[in-house]
C-alpha cells in the first residue's frame, strides 16, 4: 500500500567561519586598454558560480555589461587569499571584496575622468563603459581609451578590495557578542509516498522558502536549492558509508548510492529578499542552508504518512520495512 505524507522543517545557518577566526577575502580588478576587465580572485568556483557572481557585482558597480569581464582564478602566485569555498562565505566575503574593489575603481574612473575633462566629479557621468560630461555627452572617453592614456603615464587602472568583518571567539560557555557574520533561514515542506510493502520512500514534491537577503543570480540560487536538497534527501533515505571494524564495506558507487534523475522530487521555490544584510547588495550565503532542512522535513513527512518516528539516518527500505512490520505486529 502507498501512504502519502508531508513534513515541514525550518532551519538556520550562521555562515562564515565565525568564532573570531580571521576570515577575509581579497580581490582586485583591472581595466585594460584592450577592452577587458580582469578580476583576480583565489575564490574557488566548485560549480556554485562565484565567478559569475563576482562578475555581476563588478558589472553592476562599474556600469558595464558582464561580457567584458574575465576572471583569473586560483593561482597562489597571482591572486591573494580569498579564503575557502566553504562556510557559505564566498558571495558574502569575496562578493564584498570585489564590490569594494569595483567601488574603488569607479571612484578612480571619476577621478581620472574628471582630470581628462578638466571638470569636477558631479559634472561627469558614467554609463556603459563611457565617461562623459553630464551636460555635454558628446564629450566622452571610453574606459579602454582612458586605460590606454593612463598606461602611457605609467598608471594602471586597477583597484584592490578586501572584506574583513569581525567576529568573536565564544567564551567557555559558548557566549560572544557576534559569533557568525549573519544567519540564513530556510523552510521546506517535503511530500512523500511510502510504499508499505517495500519500505521505499518516493519523493514527490519539495517546497522551499529561503531568506537570503538578495539573490545576485536567482537561477543559480535555484540550482543551489535543488542540488543541496537532493543531497539532503540522499542523506535522508539512501546514503551511508558503512565502515565496520575500520573497513568500508561499500567503497564505490554501486553500493554507495546517491539519488538519480528518476528519484528526485519536483521543486517550487520562493526567495525572500529584504536586502538587509551586510553582504553585497544585501545578499546572504545560501550554499549550505539548502541541504539542511531536507532530512528532518523528510523524517517528519514519513511520520505523517505512516505514524512512525525514525531517529537514525538514513531511512533506508530495510529500516522502514522493519518498523512497519513491528507496527503491524502491535496492531
Amino acid at each position, binding site marked *: 500500500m502507498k501512504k502519502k505524507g508531508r513534513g515541514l522543517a525550518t532551519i538556520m545557518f550562521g555562515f562564515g567561519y565565525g568564532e573570531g577566526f580571521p576570515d577575509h577575502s581579497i580581490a582586485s580588478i583591472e581595466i585594460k586598454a584592450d577592452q577587458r576587465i580582469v578580476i583576480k580572485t583565489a575564490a574557488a568556483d566548485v560549480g556554485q558560480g562565484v565567478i559569475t557572481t563576482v562578475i555581476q557585482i563588478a558589472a553592476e558597480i562599474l556600469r558595464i555589461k558582464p561580457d567584458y569581464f574575465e576572471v583569473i582564478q586560483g593561482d*597562489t602566485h597571482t591572486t591573494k587569499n580569498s579564503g575557502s569555498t566553504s562556510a557559505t562565505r564566498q558571495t558574502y566575503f569575496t562578493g564584498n571584496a570585489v564590490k569594494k574593489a569595483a567601488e574603488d575603481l569607479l571612484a578612480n574612473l571619476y577621478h581620472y575622468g574628471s582630470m581628462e575633462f578638466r571638470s569636477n566629479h558631479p559634472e561627469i557621468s558614467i554609463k556603459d563603459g563611457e565617461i562623459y560630461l553630464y551636460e555635454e555627452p558628446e564629450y566622452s572617453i571610453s574606459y579602454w581609451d582612458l586605460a590606454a592614456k593612463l598606461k602611457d603615464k605609467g598608471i594602471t587602472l586597477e583597484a584592490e578590495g578586501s572584506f574583513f568583518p569581525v567576529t568573536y571567539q565564544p567564551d567557555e560557555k559558548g557566549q560572544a557578542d557576534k559569533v557568525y557574520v549573519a544567519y540564513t533561514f530556510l523552510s521546506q515542506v517535503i511530500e512523500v509516498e511510502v510504499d508499505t510493502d517495500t519500505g521505499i520512500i518516493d519523493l514527490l514534491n519539495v517546497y522551499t*522558502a529561503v531568506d537570503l537577503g538578495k539573490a545576485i543570480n536567482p537561477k543559480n540560487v535555484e540550482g543551489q536549492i535543488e542540488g543541496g536538497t537532493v543531497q539532503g534527501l540522499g542523506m535522508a533515505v539512501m546514503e551511508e558509508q558503512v565502515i565496520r571494524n575500520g573497513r568500508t564495506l561499500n567503497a564505490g558507487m554501486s553500493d554507495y548510492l546517491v539519488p538519480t534523475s528518476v528519484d528526485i522530487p519536483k521543486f517550487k521555490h520562493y526567495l525572500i529578499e529584504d536586502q538587509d544584510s551586510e553582504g553585497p547588495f544585501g545578499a546572504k550565503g545560501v550554499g549550505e542552508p539548502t541541504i*539542511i532542512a531536507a532530512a528532518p522535513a523528510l523524517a517528519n513527512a514519513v511520520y505523517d504518512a505512516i505514524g512512525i518516528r525514525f531517529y537514525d539516518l538514513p531511512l533506508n527500505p530495510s529500516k522502514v520495512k522493519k518498523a512497519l512490520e513491528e507496527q503491524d505486529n502491535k496492531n
Partner: protein
Amino acid sequence: MSDKQYSVKDYYCKHTTRCSSETIKDSKRFVGQDILKADAEDKVTGKAVYANDITFDDMLYLKVKRAVHPHAILKDIDTSKAKKVKGVVDIFTAEDIPDLRKFGLIIRDQPVLVALGKTMRYLGDALAVVAAESIEAAKKAVDLIEVKIEELEVITDPFRAMEADAVNIHPDGNILITHNLETGDVEAGFAESDIIVERKYQTQFIDQLPMQNEAGTAFYDERKGRVNIWAATQWLHDIQADVAQSLRLAKDQIRIIQPTIGGAFGKKEDVSVHIHLAIAAMRTGRPVKLTFSREESMITQSKRHPITIINKTGVSSDGYLKAWQTKFIGDTGAYASSGPAVVHKGMYHATGPYNVENIKGISHAVYTNNTYAGAMRGFGTTQGAFAYESQMDIMAHELKMDPAEFRQKNIYQLGSCTPNGQRLNHSVNAEETIKKVMELSGWKGGK
C-alpha cells in the same frame, strides 16, 4: 633527470572565463539577473580543464601504498621487490624523507607517510609512494610492497573510544575537543515546562561524492626552486601553506594553480594528492600525476561526521519552548581535519531558529579508527537539524498543535538572541519562510 623545460603556461591561460549578458532583459542592472554562467560554455564543450586532464610528455604516474590495517604499528616495509618492476622510477617511504612534518587543516596530526615504528590510524594512511612510467607498473609495484605490522585494537566507535581502557589513537587521548554552551538556567526551564521530551538521534558517515575524484599533476621548476601543482582545492592559500610547512619549504616555493573543480562539498578542503605530488616531482625531476580511484577517494578522504545527538526539551502547555539541553558526540575518525570545528558548530545551532532562554549543551569530537570526518555542506548543522526539527515535530505532536503553528510561536524575530548570545539585528525573516512555504505547499494546518 629530464632536460625538458616545462612551463606553467601550458595549463595556465586556459582558466580565464567570460560571461555573457545576451539573455538579460534590463541591460542596466546586472545584480538580480539570471546572467549565464561564465564557465558554462567551456564545460558543455568538454574544453574545461580539470586536474586529471593535464598531461605532460615524459610524465610519471604515482600510486600510493596505503595502510594494511586500520590501527597498527608499522614494523617493517620492504620495497625491494617493487623496485624491480620494470618502469618503476622511484619509490619513497618516510625513511627517505627524514624531516617531514605532519599536516592538517586545523590541527596538524596527519602524517604524510607513516614512519617505521609509528602508527597507521586508518586504512587511508600512506605508507609509500611509487612513481613509474605507466600506471600499470605503479599498480604492480604497490602490490609488491611488503609490510609488517603490529596490530592494535581497532576503535570503531566514539563511545568505546571514550572508555578508560581504550587504546589511545593519538598521544593526548581520544577526545579531540570538547565545547560547552550555556545560557539561562536549564534546570529552572525544565521546572516550568509542562511537557519534557528527551530523544536520541544518530546520523551516519556520508561521502560528499563530488563527481571528480582527487587528482593532480605537478612538476618541479629547479631554476626557481619551486614546485608547481595543479590540483583542485577549496582553499588554495591554506593548502599551499600546509604543503610548504610539511616539506619545510618557504610558502613561495609551492605554487598551486586551480584547474576547473569537479565538485567539492567539503571534500576538497583537505590535503589529498598535493604533498605526495610535490615530493615525487622534486625527487624525480619529472612531471608527475596522481589520480585517486573512487574507492581510494572514499576510503582516504574526509566524510560527514556521524553524530549522536541527545536532545531534552521542555515546553509549556501553550507551546513555548522553556529549556533545551543537548549533547553532541561526533565520530571524527582517525584525524582531526575540520573535526575541531564541525561538531560544536552543530551544537551551537542545536536549538534551530527558535527562542529558548535556558540552554545547556556539550559536544565532543572523538577520534576512532574510521576514515576521518571533516567538512561537508552544513558542517555539523545538517546533523543537528535532523535532531532539532524532529524534536520540534514530536513536541508539536505532544501538544496536539500544528507543527507550523508551533514553530511560528517560537521562531526568531528581529532582536532575538542565539544560543551563543548573539543578538540578531538585521535580516531575520525566519517566520516569513514558514509563511511562504505554507502558501507554496498549500499547508492548511491541523493535527
